[in-house]
């Protein structure tokens, strides 16, 4: 029995997360080696190629890991569509493939640099001797240059391994399960034990692999075969131990997706709980980016998730007008049908974008609506989440009300609400289903011109899943069952401490409430 139920939860997820983490980082490392070693060797006597190779891998290194991983998704998606058209066979652009490719690219620099440095650093007299005794170029490479450069190359492989294992935590948002799932889930649900657990697990894995490779490196430079074998056996053991349970686990039939915020994790848990109650096996793919998740559903990489009508209205349908709630839903449903996606139903609450202020501040300034706000906005500051200021709703608000602020900043949603309450920022972008609005005594400003479209939470099913009766029956009861008060209360619970704040516990509580209210 652990001190904290969250530790039990974290441990229960370890085989899946660690296994996937090892699988993706080892695959990326092997692929990276298979590409960068031969390229580096080939470039030794070709200065132009060598400089190009070093420059390329250095540039890749300057791209932030998260961005590199995210870039591979649309790239592969395009490629998949292309092969789909050309050969009638497309592949999944989500998860393993983009993660492995991006990480492999990321792993190249240390290997390339050390291989080049190692071989070019050999005493020219030794090289001359290799040719003088009658070696061919190939023999000189295999019998003299590579053995002499091996310790330096091994050091590069070590650096590369540590980088790859660390960066693999960023594979989560492109849909590849990794130890990063602890970190992303933990950050979103304010589960710091998860965050810490993920960091420590990734660090321990990286250190263990680094030390085993160090043992091999030492064995190589001191010509001790035993040390090389011991290091290799250790790494093989880690791989086998990490992958064993993962492969033994049965393949889940239904995959539930979630975006990267608290409400999504709770609803994901609720959907999963309902499916399991109906005897279906499930798996999660959470922490997915907002547009990645829709493409993933369209491609059948996930089976079900909750999106919001306004999000699809603006980002997928590219609409700039707004219409009443029911009309948006109806038009969206038709649009989705054309893409073979089924809109099973609205959950019953809206999670709309809104502008919010602390009640005290709003009253002292006499602000009740966005129209009131526009008059005093030039003297105020506004904070938004990473998406908000890039969204069409924001542009529409600016255009419709002539909004202009003294200062505009990007803040992690978790920190926005307390900042508004403390007066560190005057106005924030908020979500109407957010539990912390009440907690921090914030008021949502009216939108008299109806600029912001409605954001009904809706259940979307992947192409082909609408005909799956058991699946649909299990999810039907969620339709119209969650009002905004229930969702706000659920979201607020997620900010609490202890076992009750896990998405699973909240999902169970929500279902209890739904059954009790008899909807």
């Amino acid at each position, binding site marked *: 029995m652990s001190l904290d139920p969250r530790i039990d939860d974290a441990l229960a997820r370890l085989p899946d997360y660690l296994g996937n983490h090892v699988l993706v980082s080892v695959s990326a490392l092997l692929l990276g080696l298979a590409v960068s070693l031969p390229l580096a060797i080939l470039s030794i006597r070709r200065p132009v190629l060598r400089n190009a190779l070093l420059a390329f891998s250095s540039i890749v290194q300057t791209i932030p890991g998260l961005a590199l991983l995210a870039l591979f998704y649309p790239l592969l998606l395009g490629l998949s569509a292309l092969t789909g058209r050309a050969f009638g066979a497309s592949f999944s652009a989500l998860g393993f493939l983009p993660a492995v490719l991006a990480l492999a690219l990321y792993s190249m620099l240390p290997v390339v640099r050390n291989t080049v440095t190692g071989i070019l650093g050999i005493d020219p007299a*030794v090289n001359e*001797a290799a040719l003088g005794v009658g070696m061919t170029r190939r023999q000189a490479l295999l019998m003299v240059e590579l053995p*002499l450069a091996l310790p330096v190359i091994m050091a590069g492989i070590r650096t590369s391994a540590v980088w790859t294992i660390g960066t693999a935590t960023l594979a989560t948002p492109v849909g590849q399960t990794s130890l990063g799932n602890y970190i992303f889930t933990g950050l979103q649900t304010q589960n710091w034990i998860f965050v810490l657990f993920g960091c420590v697990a990734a660090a321990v894995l990286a250190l263990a692999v680094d030390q085993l490779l160090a043992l091999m490196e030492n064995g190589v430079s001191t010509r001790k075969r035993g040390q090389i074998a011991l290091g290799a056996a250790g790494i093989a053991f880690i791989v086998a131990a990490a992958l064993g349970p993962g492969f033994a686990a049965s393949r889940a039939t239904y995959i539930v997706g979630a975006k990267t915020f608290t409400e999504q994790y709770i609803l994901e848990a609720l959907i999963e709980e309902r499916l399991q109650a109906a005897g279906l096996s499930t798996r999660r793919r959470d922490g997915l980016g907002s547009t990645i998740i829709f493409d993933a559903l369209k491609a059948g990489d996930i089976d079900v998730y909750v999106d919001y009508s306004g999000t699809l209205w603006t980002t997928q349908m590219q609409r700039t007008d707004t219409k009443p709630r029911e009309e948006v839903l109806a038009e969206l449903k038709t649009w989705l049908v054309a893409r073979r996606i089924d809109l099973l139903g609205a959950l019953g609450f809206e999670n709309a974008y809104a502008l919010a202020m602390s009640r005290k501040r709003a009253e002292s300034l006499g602000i009740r609506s966005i129209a009131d706000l526009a008059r005093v906005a030039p003297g105020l500051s506004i904070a938004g989440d990473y998406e908000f200021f890039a969204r069409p709703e924001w542009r529409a608000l600016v255009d419709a009300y002539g909004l202009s602020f003294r200062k505009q900043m990007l803040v992690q949603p978790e920190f926005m609400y307390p900042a508004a309450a403390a007066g560190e920022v005057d106005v924030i972008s908020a979500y109407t289903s957010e539990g912390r609005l009440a907690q921090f005594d914030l008021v949502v400003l009216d939108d008299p011109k109806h600029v912001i479209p409605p954001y009904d939470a809706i259940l979307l099913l992947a192409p082909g899943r609408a005909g799956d009766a058991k699946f649909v029956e299990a999810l039907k009861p969620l339709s119209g069952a969650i009002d905004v008060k229930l969702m706000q209360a659920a979201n607020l619970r997620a900010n609490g401490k202890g076992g009750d704040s896990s998405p699973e516990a909240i999902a169970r509580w929500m279902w209890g409430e739904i059954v009790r209210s008899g909807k």
Partner: protein
Amino acid sequence: MPRAPIIEFSDVSKTYGEAHALEHVSLVVGAGEFLAIVGPSGSGKTTLLRLVNRLAEPSSGEVRVENADVRLADPPLLRRRIGYVFQGIGLFPHLTVAENIAITPRLIGWEKDKRAARADELLNLVRLDPAHYRDRLPAELSGGERQRVGVARALAAEPKIVLMDEPFGALDAVNRDAIGRDYRALHAGLGLTTVMITHDLTEAVLLADRIVVIHEGRLIEEGTPRELMISPKNAYVRELIETPRRQAERLGALLKGGA
């Protein structure tokens, strides 16, 4: 008895961009001969040696080894039948003494046992105890020991020709003399043809059958040690010969009990 030619340079020139390393050099080395090439640094003597096993290619002219134009030979195969002792010794630091010695036999495809036996045989030949030296790494050897291993490696594949580039330059006087005399005995005993580069005329005079002097890429003097000592034709060579001759006379006088 005139010797059959084994290495022939015919009007060989070598330029590196604007610089002339060798200009119209013609030279014949006879089978079994011990030829020393003497000249100051940068005179082109190393380039001349490297033309023989195609570590360098002439810009014009022809080099023949055993009556065949070297351009017709595959460089690695050519090098495997010519022993080479390098200026920097160039032992492979990751291979043991025995592995270093047996490297060319390994390239030719000798069996492992035969290679080990050959390495021991050569260690004995260069007066190093096989039991004591065969499994050591080059870093564990002294300069003299390393040079002996370098000579053993050059002889491993039973070459007829051995090229030596300042082989004993880095050694102290005692070691240098000992290895020089030992090598001279091997040269005679194995019936080798040896071309040795040195900037030290005394060494050349004491070891070689014949000496050629290279200066600024040109062959300026050629003859037996005795001919060179007694009647050098070239002014530079006269100057070159002056120091060892004066030293020899002074040593001779000392030994006779004079001064």
